């Protein structure tokens, strides 16, 4: 089992979470906690530098913005106030504090939740359609609109010459009989 050293406020908040306690005050001493699951068994050894302080906060938010809150409607983990999202945010923070890169954190969550958890689907396989089709449709719509605008600017089209009225044998016959 792996041991992580965490920033004191985040860690104590994590430990106190199950008892419903409020987050502790800043400046508490750093402590260590044993986690139940070692992320390295899933995403390999930590590939980045361990983060702390503002850098840790920024990385946690940046990664959290890329993860979907599973209990919300289209919200990221970073933005969601849901308890479940908060637990995920804590996990993100722990991993960054232990030196896991953003990609490793995303891979860790994807291994548990599947690609659903990524707010931006990976650009591979059938997902490519999600990235290619909208701009293609937008471009096609734009070209169509431009074509219509050009036609309108060119002025109204000349009315087609009216063809000579076809002779109507019945009308001709009636006319002849009246004239007679």
């Amino acid at each position: 089992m792996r041991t992580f050293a965490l920033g004191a406020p985040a860690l104590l908040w994590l430990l106190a979470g199950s008892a419903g306690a409020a987050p502790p005050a800043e400046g508490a001493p750093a402590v260590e906690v044993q986690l139940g699951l070692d992320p390295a068994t899933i995403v390999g050894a930590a590939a980045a530098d361990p983060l702390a302080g503002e850098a840790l906060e920024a990385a946690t938010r940046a990664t959290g913005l890329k993860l979907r809150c599973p209990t919300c409607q289209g919200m990221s983990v970073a933005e969601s106030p849901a308890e479940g999202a908060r637990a995920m945010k804590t996990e993100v923070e722990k991993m960054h504090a232990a030196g896991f890169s953003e990609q490793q954190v995303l891979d860790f969550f994807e291994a548990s939740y599947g690609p659903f958890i990524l707010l931006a689907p990976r650009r591979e396989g059938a997902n490519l359609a999600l990235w290619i089709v909208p701009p293609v449709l937008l471009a096609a719509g734009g070209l169509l609109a431009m074509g219509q605008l050009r036609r309108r600017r060119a002025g109204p089209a000349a009315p087609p010459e009216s063809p000579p009225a076809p002779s109507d044998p019945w009308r001709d016959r009636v006319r002849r009989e009246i004239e007679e």
Partner: protein
Amino acid sequence: MNWKVLGAGLAVVVPLVWVLASGFGKDPQYIPSPLIGKPAPDFTLPMLDAEGATLHLASLQGKPTFVNFWATWCDTCRVEHPLLVSLSRTYADRVHFVGIAYLDTEPKLRGWLAAHGGAAFPTLIDVGSTAAVAFGVGRLPESYVLDSAGVIRHKYFGVVQPRQVIVDLEALL
């Protein structure tokens, strides 16, 4: 009839209707688990009312294990509880049943269990929600069936259907 307009309309409408129709039969909240067929995340979690005792999930190997994530704030867990109690009694000697309390507190868990007929199987406290995150738990209740080797074989989203659980457990016994 303007065939060009009709063709363009059908090209847009038919795929759209197909996408919508194929989604009608699915639960939009269901998240398929990528963990099916993989070893379950391993945990040592504290047990409720066990005076500091912990339970190591891997120690349950040798028999199939039914893992249920639940919470006192989960309304549908109230409906599910008697079903799980009944199933756990049916399979008392053949299947391990374990509850994992997610985002909850021990006093609330004690009160809830006392008000709902007591616990028929151990409840573990998911400190820091690490177990729930590792299992990919979204909305509660969620349950998983692990085979004798600790590999996840089934995931149940929402209140379990006892018939389905029985079929799945029997196949593992």
